[in-house]
């Protein structure tokens, strides 16, 4: 009974995508112009076989993913450090706060032409863009997490004579962890979007965005659809992975009902 219910619940999640696919296929069968705008399922399937056979799909996805991970690593680490610094040291908050808060108002996309001018349009610049995209949400959440450390727990640390590093590791970091994971999930989403997005602006190189740009030039609607699906699915998978990780590391929190 309960497994049956679970199956039903699982199938419910599939209902809306399946409806969408059906509507899509119906649209593609209406007339010639529709058939172009909505590539038929058959042509998408053929395109998928072609792309995976040539390896282009894997190479593109890998390039975009790799850039996301690298940028996320840099951006999230620096964001955490800066956020912790601003939260824990009033001096740091005064020194870098105003600069930080005005720069974060500028959309990353608006910075791309400038960054391309300074650093060229190679992979390094793209990683920098991804890192910037991950940096801001991470830093903001780190500030929040580290400034909300309960003074009662700090006192316990003082009672047991913890040194500065022990204090960071045993008291501050775990206190901030829920906010840090919140920031990380946001940073991941921004990193992934900007990893693919910056390929549309800096068109040399490899990646899912480039694959779609080339498909557009060659009027291959099927490949564009495959690109969109890939980006969506990979983003979803990474989000799921990070959510699981956060649940595991935050298992000490009481379950909220």
């Amino acid at each position, binding site marked *: 009974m309960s497994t049956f219910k679970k199956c039903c619940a699982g199938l419910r999640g599939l209902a809306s995508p399946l409806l969408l696919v059906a509507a899509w296929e119906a649209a593609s069968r209406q007339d010639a112009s529709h058939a172009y705008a909505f590539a038929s399922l058959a042509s998408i399937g053929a395109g998928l076989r072609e792309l995976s056979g040539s390896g282009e799909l894997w190479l593109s996805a890998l390039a975009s993913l790799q850039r996301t991970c690298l940028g996320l690593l840099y951006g999230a680490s620096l964001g955490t450090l800066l956020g912790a610094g601003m939260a824990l040291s009033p001096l740091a908050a005064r020194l870098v706060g105003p600069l930080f808060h005005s720069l974060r108002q500028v959309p990353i996309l608006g910075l791309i032409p400038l960054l391309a001018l300074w650093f060229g349009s190679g992979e390094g610049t793209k990683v920098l863009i991804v890192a910037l995209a991950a940096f801001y949400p991470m830093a903001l959440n780190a500030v929040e997490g580290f400034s909300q450390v309960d003074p009662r727990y700090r006192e*316990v640390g003082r*009672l*047991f*004579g*913890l040194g500065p590093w022990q204090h960071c590791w*045993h*008291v501050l970091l775990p206190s901030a962890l829920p906010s840090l994971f919140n920031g990380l999930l946001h940073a991941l989403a921004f990193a992934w979007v900007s990893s693919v997005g910056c390929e549309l602006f800096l068109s040399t190189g490899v990646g899912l965005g480039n694959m779609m740009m080339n498909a557009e030039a060659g009027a291959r609607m099927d490949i564009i659809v495959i690109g969109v699906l890939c980006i969506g699915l990979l983003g979803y998978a990474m989000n799921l992975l990070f959510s699981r990780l956060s649940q595991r590391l935050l298992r*000490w929190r*009481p379950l909220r009902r």
Partner: protein
Amino acid sequence: MTAIAPPIPPLALDTPGALSIRGLNKHYPIDGRRLPVLQHIDLQVQPGEFIAIVGASGCGKSTLLRLIAGLETDYEGQMQLDGKPIRGPSLDRGMVFQDHRLFPWKTVFDNIALALKHSRLDKAHVAARVNEHIALVGLQGFEHAYPHQLSGGMAQRAAIARALITQPKLLLLDEPFGALDALTRVRMQQELQRLWIQQRSTMIMVTHDVEEALYLGDRVIVLEPRPGRIRHVIEVGLAHPRERNAARLQSLRQEILGQLLSQAGH
């Protein structure tokens, strides 16, 4: 002085844990003015003695314990533990708060082990000590539970184990059982008494429960509010463990309640 009767092994004269407080004053700045919270506190605590402090809420009981613990360092007067002035927190003074203050992100085991972070003990010795103290407070089987999985009484036991594991000369308890139900509280009082007899460290406990103060304390100190002053010191003078409804405890209870109520009157 205090009647220390048979069950407690006699203490050597130089047993550490003697607290001396002379002319202690404490102010808090409020709206730019200095509000007196404690005034002219004089208190000499013998090694191994159990002191209970009662008083109306807001009369400075927690402040007094926090001063002794070294969490508040801004005061006038003298405070010495075994002749050494108190200038900040130290491992020779342990503290148990009303809210157990276990770190929610650590298991019972890791919470207790944290108190040994300063020590140069290796992992195996830490584990042995921690397990010994977990057994001491009867929490076997809950080593790997997180605080939110414990009942109030169990969390408080873990907090007591954490405070005892550094073998402090002086253990400070700020209404440790205040949030517990009546039955659990009685059981915890017995446990604490057993630990005290076993450990022989000096203990100072703040409580709002006069019966608890009389059941556990060698001396009961009654504080008077605004500003906090010592109004009365009562020598209980009965051996431990005590009969809860001993006639002397009953009459002392009436006396203390009368004092507390007369304060509230004016």
